[in-house]
């Protein structure tokens, strides 16, 4: 029951946080910024609209938003929020959920290619290339976690007595993981310095350009899916930073949602104090995150002892 409740809470709260990023960016730019609930308003607005489909697109195009949305919700079902048990959990679920996210991406890409727009093909190529590199970092993290816990389940990582945390014995390694995971978060969620979610320049876009042709409820699904994806990665980082070892309580839950805001503030600060990378620098950035985790994995092998 608690697991279910926390999942519902997470699903409801996810669109709030991107509003925080906008507020932080507005603060740095000396502006008032949009209201905190802007993303809810946007979703509501989009859901009330109709969708427009190009005559040159096929059923694949309509499939894109639905599948990618489902693939974004899916990982959250496996996530033990604030120390509560996961709603669903089994041995090997982490591998599955990262690949389910991969399926979501696959359908976004296929839908983009279906439009036959030269921009979208370009964006698709970039997205696939960069996320392939990010996958390296993610699986290096999973290897490390396996070595630390002997498990391949999110529930075992973050729920119960023996959890992975910064405060644990292998805390030094987790620092590397947190940094790497934050870099992956920026990449996977198309944030500065990898991508610029606010730009209107199609030629520079990575993710945004792939969804240019989607409109109305389709776009709402894509947006909502993006919020969930970002929420998943942010929650992952928070669970690593702060150990929710105590049995589940309302206080823990509250603390979790407050700490979550920190990740989004960090994203907002980064977007305000640095410019985007040149496109050819992005792979180096992503591979750096892999190198960090890989280093941590080597340390667990006991070679240096």
């Amino acid at each position, binding site marked *: 029951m608690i697991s279910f409740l926390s999942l519902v809470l997470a699903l409801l709260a996810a669109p709030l946080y991107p509003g925080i990023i906008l507020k932080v960016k507005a603060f740095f*730019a000396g502006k008032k910024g949009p209201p905190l609930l802007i993303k809810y308003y946007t979703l509501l607005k989009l859901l009330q609209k109709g969708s427009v489909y190009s005559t040159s697109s096929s059923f694949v195009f309509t499939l894109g938003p639905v599948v990618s949305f489902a693939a974004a919700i899916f990982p959250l079902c496996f996530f033990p929020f604030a120390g509560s048990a996961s709603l669903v959990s089994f041995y090997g679920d982490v591998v599955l959920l990262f690949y389910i996210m991969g399926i979501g991406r696959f359908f976004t890409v296929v839908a983009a290619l279906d439009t036959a727009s030269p921009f979208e093909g370009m964006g698709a190529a970039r997205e696939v290339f960069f996320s392939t590199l990010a996958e390296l970092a993610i699986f290096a993290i999973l290897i490390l976690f396996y070595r630390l816990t002997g498990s391949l389940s999110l529930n075992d990582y973050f729920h119960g007595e023996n959890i992975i945390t910064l405060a644990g014995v292998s805390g030094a390694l987790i620092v590397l993981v947190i940094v790497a995971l934050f870099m992956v978060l920026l990449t996977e969620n198309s944030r500065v310095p990898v991508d610029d979610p606010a730009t209107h*320049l199609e*030629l*520079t876009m990575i993710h945004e350009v792939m969804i240019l042709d989607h409109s109305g409820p389709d776009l709402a699904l894509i947006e909502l899916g993006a919020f969930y994806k970002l929420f998943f990665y942010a929650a992952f980082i928070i669970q690593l930073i702060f150990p929710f070892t105590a049995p589940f309580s309302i206080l823990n839950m509250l603390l979790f949602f407050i700490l979550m805001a920190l990740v989004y503030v960090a994203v907002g600060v980064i*977007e305000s104090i640095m*410019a*985007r*990378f*040149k496109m050819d620098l992005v792979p180096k950035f992503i591979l750096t995150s892999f190198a960090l985790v890989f280093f941590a994995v080597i340390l667990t092998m006991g070679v240096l002892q």
Partner: protein
Amino acid sequence: MDNMLKITNGQAIARASIPLVPFESFFTSLSTFVKNDGYIVQFFAFTEEDKNFILAVVRNSDLYVISTEVGSIFQSLTGQVSEKFHMFEREVAEQYGLRPDGHPWLKMVRYHPNYTGYPDVFDNDYAEEIPGNYSYFQVKGEAIHEVGVGPVHAGIIEPGHFRFQCAGEEVLHLEIQLGYQHRGIEKMLPTMPMKRMPIICEAIAGDTAIGHNLCLCQAIESLAGMQIEPGASITRCIALELERLANHIGDLGALSGDVAFNPPASYFGRIRGEFLNLLQVLCGNRFGKGLVRPGGVAHIMGEEQRQLLRDKLAEITPEIEHVCDLLFTAHTVLARFEHTGTVSKEMASDLGLVGYAGRACGLAYDARVAFPTECYQDLPANSNKVTDGDVNSRAWVRREEIMHSLQLITMLLAKHEALMEEEKAVQTRPVNLAADSFVVTVNEGWRGEVSHAILTDRQGDVQRYKIKDPSFHNWTGLAMSLRNQGISDFPLCNKSYNLSYCGFDL
């Protein structure tokens, strides 16, 4: 060069004194001139009594004029002499149906039927929708893909079509096709009553309202023998500098926004508004429309306006320095700006780039220094330190010009205050222009060299009006910037030039 006539910027001359030479001599004189660090200011055709003429105004440290009579076909200078003639010859072919023989890439400029009724050089049927139906330069190969952008763009920019030939992320060639906003201004102006001419010239390019209108007014003043008061001259310079400031600051903000570095984008956006508001203080219009009129200015700058200007400048000058520092010291921004969209000095000189685009490549030409009008001969010149030809240089040139312009305005304000005589506001009234005369005016608009030329007929009516916006030179520079660049750097390169679509399309 001996057969060219040296002329002065904004001084009308009798048409009879313009050297009319045989084409061979025209060809060799221009070849020699252009090859020896000479540049083209105007190169246009006109017809008289069923004969076609081409008139060229060229510059090195002085301005020269030369003309020739041609048949419906003439030998292209682009093919044999210099790329500087490229766009001009295409324009001649389009406007008058005269074919430049041996032109390497004879293609339409703005898509309109020619003025003379000669058979179309490009074999177009203008009853059809031609834009988009043109065959573009193509690169062939398995790994090549073509990206077409525009003419309708995201955001609020003007229409223009960009065709990229790419290998992966790398751009091999960019072809720019404009003309979507062709309004036929050159053809319209001679038919207009004088009262409407300044209003039309202010609308040639909305961001260069002062620059273009100044060129028109100086030309009319020269043809009509009008004198303008020193006070009006100072006000015009201040307006021109305010226009430069507003646009340069806006551009720095936009450059910053394009690399997703938000704070300077917002600050500069706000500061740009402050300068537009100062133009409003001068004349009641944020773009300076309705200020400059033949014979002077339509709004006198009084003590109240001077004080408002002084106070505002004192307030925002430190802010501008601060935000410039913020932008130019951010290493992530420099990583994007440096070595992006580089055009070498040789290339820039071959193409004849003007304005900040040229200065960023090391071509120091500034019309305010070379051919000063109004009170620019008494003002200090600017010099640029960063001239590598990349986006960073174009941004730095803007920064230096902003600081220079702020200094100029302060000096101009002091000068204006020291004036003794009473000023009078002028309104456009019909004046008689000198018959059979020719005048060319050159001013340094914020984007670069703006030039207008007027030919009058025997009755003293405008026979041919020729306009040249700096964008006419510089669009090719943008195309060259993109060679072997990442396609994702295009928006940044484009913004670093910030060229005018409507100023080109006329």
